[in-house]
C-alpha cells in the first residue's frame, strides 16, 4: 500500500472516531492559546510591575568618555525627533542641556519640553518669572529666537552660539532655578556650536523591551558618543521570585501540554494497531509507516497551531489588551514564530518517541496486543 493510500486510510479512521478527534482538537487549541496567553501575561506582568513601582520610566542618555566630543544639538534633536514616533504614547518630558565649550561664559543652555498633543511644549519655570513672561503653549512651534534668562542678566538680548536671541522673560533665581541657566524652546534651540551633555526622557509608563531596543538603535545612530541605559529589570527579590515562579508555571504548562499529547496520541496509535499490523503484513515498511503517522499527526498539529494562533491573535489578544495593555506590544510576528518553533520542536520529540516505539513492534506483537 502506498504512503498516500495509508495516509488516506488513517485520516478516514481519525474522522470515524469523532469523540477522539474532538478531544484532540480541543486539547491542541487550548494548549496553543494558553501558552501564547501566558507568555503575553508574563511580559505584561514584568512591565506592569515596573510601572507600579515607578522604575524604568526615566531615561538619562549621556556621554561616557571625556575624550569624545559631545554631540551638537542638531544630532540630539534628530535623535529626539526620530524617537518620538516610537514612544509618543508614553513620552512625558524631554530635557537636554548644552554649553559652549569654546566660550568662557558659565552659562548652560537648557531645553525642557513637555510632550502634549503631539507637540514639544516649553515648560514654565517652577521658580517663577520675575520680569516679562515665561513660556506659553503657543511657543511650542516657534522657531523665533526667544529665551528666558535669569533676572541677574541685564540685557534684553543674548548671543547664543553666534545667534541673537530675544529675552522674553527673566526668571527668579532660587533653589529651583539656578542663576546660570538660559531656557530656550525646542525648535528655537541653536543647531550647532554647542555641545549637549545629556538628554533625559521621562515617560508616563515604562518602555517595553521592544521600544527600549528601538531607542537604543536610534541613540547608536544619532548620538553614538552617549551611553544608552540598560533595560531595567525588576529590582527587588519579592517581585523577582513571583516573576520566576510564574515563568516556572508557564514551563510546567508546556510540560503538561506535552504529556497531554503523549496520552492522547498513545491512545490514538493504540487504536491503529490492527491497521498497522495488516499494513505491515501487506509489505509496508517501518520507515514508511513512521512517515505516514508522522505526516498525519504533525500535519494535524501544524494546522491546529495555525488555527490556535489565528484565534489568539484575532479574538483573544484584542479582548485581553484592555486589561493587559502591554501584552500586544510583546506579541510580535517574531514572538509567534519563536514560540511556534519551540512548540513544534516539543511535538517533534513527542511524535518521534511515540511513533518510533509504535512502529518498532512486529505485526504479531501488534495483533497480540489488540
Amino acid at each position, binding site marked *: 500500500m502506498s504512503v498516500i493510500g495509508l495516509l488516506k486510510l488513517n485520516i478516514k479512521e481519525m474522522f470515524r472516531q469523532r*469523540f*477522539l478527534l474532538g*478531544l484532540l482538537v*480541543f*486539547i491542541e487549541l*487550548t*494548549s496553543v492559546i*494558553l501558552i501564547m*496567553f*501566558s507568555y503575553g*501575561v*508574563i511580559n*505584561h*506582568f514584568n512591565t*506592569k*510591575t515596573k510601572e*507600579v*513601582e*515607578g522604575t524604568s520610566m526615566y531615561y538619562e542618555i549621556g556621554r561616557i568618555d571625556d575624550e569624545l566630543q559631545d554631540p551638537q544639538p542638531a544630532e540630539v534633536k534628530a535623535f529626539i525627533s526620530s524617537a518620538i514616533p516610537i514612544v509618543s504614547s508614553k513620552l512625558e518630558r524631554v530635557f537636554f542641556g548644552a554649553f559652549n565649550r569654546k566660550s568662557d561664559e558659565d552659562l548652560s543652555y537648557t531645553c525642557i519640553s513637555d510632550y502634549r498633543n503631539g507637540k514639544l511644549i516649553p515648560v514654565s519655570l517652577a521658580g517663577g518669572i520675575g520680569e516679562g513672561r515665561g513660556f506659553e503653549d503657543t511657543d511650542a512651534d516657534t522657531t523665533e529666537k526667544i529665551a528666558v534668562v535669569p533676572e541677574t542678566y541685564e540685557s534684553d538680548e543674548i548671543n547664543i552660539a553666534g545667534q541673537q536671541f530675544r529675552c522674553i522673560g527673566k526668571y527668579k533665581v532660587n533653589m529651583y532655578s539656578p542663576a546660570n541657566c538660559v531656557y530656550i524652546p525646542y525648535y528655537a534651540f541653536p543647531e550647532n556650536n554647542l555641545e549637549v551633555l545629556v538628554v533625559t526622557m521621562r515617560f508616563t509608563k515604562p518602555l517595553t523591551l521592544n521600544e527600549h531596543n528601538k531607542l537604543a538603535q536610534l541613540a547608536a545612530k544619532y548620538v553614538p558618543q552617549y551611553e544608552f541605559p540598560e533595560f531595567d529589570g525588576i*529590582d*527587588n*527579590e*519579592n*517581585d*523577582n*521570585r*513571583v516573576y*520566576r*515562579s*510564574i515563568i*516556572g*508555571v*508557564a514551563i*510546567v*504548562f508546556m*510540560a*503538561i*501540554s506535552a*504529556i*497531554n499529547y*503523549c*496520552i*492522547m496520541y*498513545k*491512545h490514538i496509535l*493504540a487504536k491503529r494497531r490492527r491497521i498497522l499490523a495488516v499494513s505491515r503484513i501487506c509489505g509496508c515498511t517501518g520507515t514508511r509507516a513512521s512517515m505516514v503517522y508522522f505526516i498525519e499527526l504533525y500535519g494535524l498539529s501544524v494546522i491546529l497551531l495555525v488555527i490556535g494562533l489565528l484565534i489568539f491573535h484575532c479574538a483573544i489578544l484584542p479582548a485581553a489588551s484592555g*486589561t*493587559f495593555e502591554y501584552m500586544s506590544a510583546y506579541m510580535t510576528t517574531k514572538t509567534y514564530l519563536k514560540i511556534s518553533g519551540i512548540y513544534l520542536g516539543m511535538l517533534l520529540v513527542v511524535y518521534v518517541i511515540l511513533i518510533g516505539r509504535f512502529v518498532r513492534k512486529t505485526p504479531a506483537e501488534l495483533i497480540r496486543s489488540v
Partner: protein
Amino acid sequence: MFSLGFSEFLKNIKNNILVLAELILIYVAAIFMMSAISEQYSLINGIKTFFDRTGTFVKQDTIAAGTTVTDEELLENLTGVERIVRPVETNLYGEIDGNRYNLNFITNNSDYVKSIPRLTEGRWCENAEHEDGIINIVLSDNVPFKVPVGDIVNLEGCNFRVTGYYGIKEMVFGLTNTLNTDGSESYISMYGTVNEFLEYNDPMSEYYAIASYEDVNREMKDRMYSGLFMIIDYYDDLSEQDIEKNMDILCTKFNYTADADMFDMRNIYTYSMELLRIKFVPVAVIFGLTFILTLTCIFNAASLNVMREQHNYGIYFICGNNWKNTVILSFMHWVCLSVTALIIAGVISAFVRVSNLYNGLAFSFGWMNILSLTVITVLILIFAVLLPFVMLRKMQPVNILRNNE
C-alpha cells in the same frame, strides 16, 4: 470493590505513568501559583497592623520638616496617640578582619513589623538566642568582610553576633533612601533594598545590618536615630475631628506639610490595595489558565481512561458488577493516582524548600495551598465519577465488548 480498584491501579501502573506525571505537574504548578500570590501579599501582610487602625504616615527627610521630631514631643502635643513606630538607624565604625569599616544598622519594632527578608544563610536575628551584652544582627551578603554565622564582632564598644545573611535585593522595612514626591505613597514606599543604595553610589550605605529590636533596645537605644519616616497610630475611638486637629498640629507646630510630608494611613491603604490589585491581576489570570489547563488535562486523561478500560468494565459487568460499582472502581483508580501524585508533589516541594532553588522562587505552604490542592483533587474525583457514568450509562456490555474486539 476498593481492593479491586487498587489492584487495577497497580496493574495499569505503566499505562498510568504519564497521567501520574501530569497530575504531579498540576499539583506543583498549583503550589507555586499559590506561593506567588502569597509572596505578592507578604510585604503588606508584614505590616498590616498599621492598616488595621487610623494613623498618620510622616516623612522625616524634607527641608520643610527640618529636624527630626522626637516621640516625646509628639506624644506631648498630639491627642489619642497609641504608639509611634519608626525604623531606627545608626552607623558605627570598627575593625573587622584587621580592616576598618563603617557599618549601617537598621532595626524595626518586631511587634508591628512582621516582614522578614528571606535569608541566604543562618537565622533571623529575632529568632536566634538573645544574650546580655550582645546584639544579634543579620548582614547584607555584599559586606566586604566575611564573618561566619554565630561569630561576634565588636564595633565602637558594642558586641554584634552575626546570625545570618540576606540578599541585597531583599525588601527591608524602613530601608528607603528616598520617598516619593508625588504623593503616591503606598506600602512599597516603606520598603527598600540595599541594592537601591548601591545604584545611587552612596559609599556610606553600601551594606546594611538589620539588628534585633529587642537587643538594640537593651544595649544601644541611645545611639539610634530616626529613619526616613514614622507612623503615628491612634486609638480606635479617636474622632475624625481629633485626627484633623493632630494633622493641624503637625503642620503648624512641627512644620510638616499635608500631602507632601504626611499622609492619612487610610489613603495609603487604599492606594496600596490598588497597587496590589494591579500586580495581582496577571498572577490571577495565570492561575485561571492553570485551572483551565488542569480541567482540560483531567477531562482528557479521565475520558481516555474510560475508553481504555471499558473492555474490562464490560467483563466486570457480565461477572455481576453493576455500573454503580464500575463508577466506584474508576473513583478508586483516581483516588490512588491523586494520592500518589500528591505525595510526589509534596516530596518535590520539600526538595525545593531545602535546596538553593528556595531563594529564587516564591515558595510557601499555607492554607491557600491546601485549599488549591483540595479543589484540584475534588475536581479530579468529580471527573472520575462523572465521566464513566456519562460515557457508559447508555451502553450495553455486549456492545462494549463487540466494539473492543
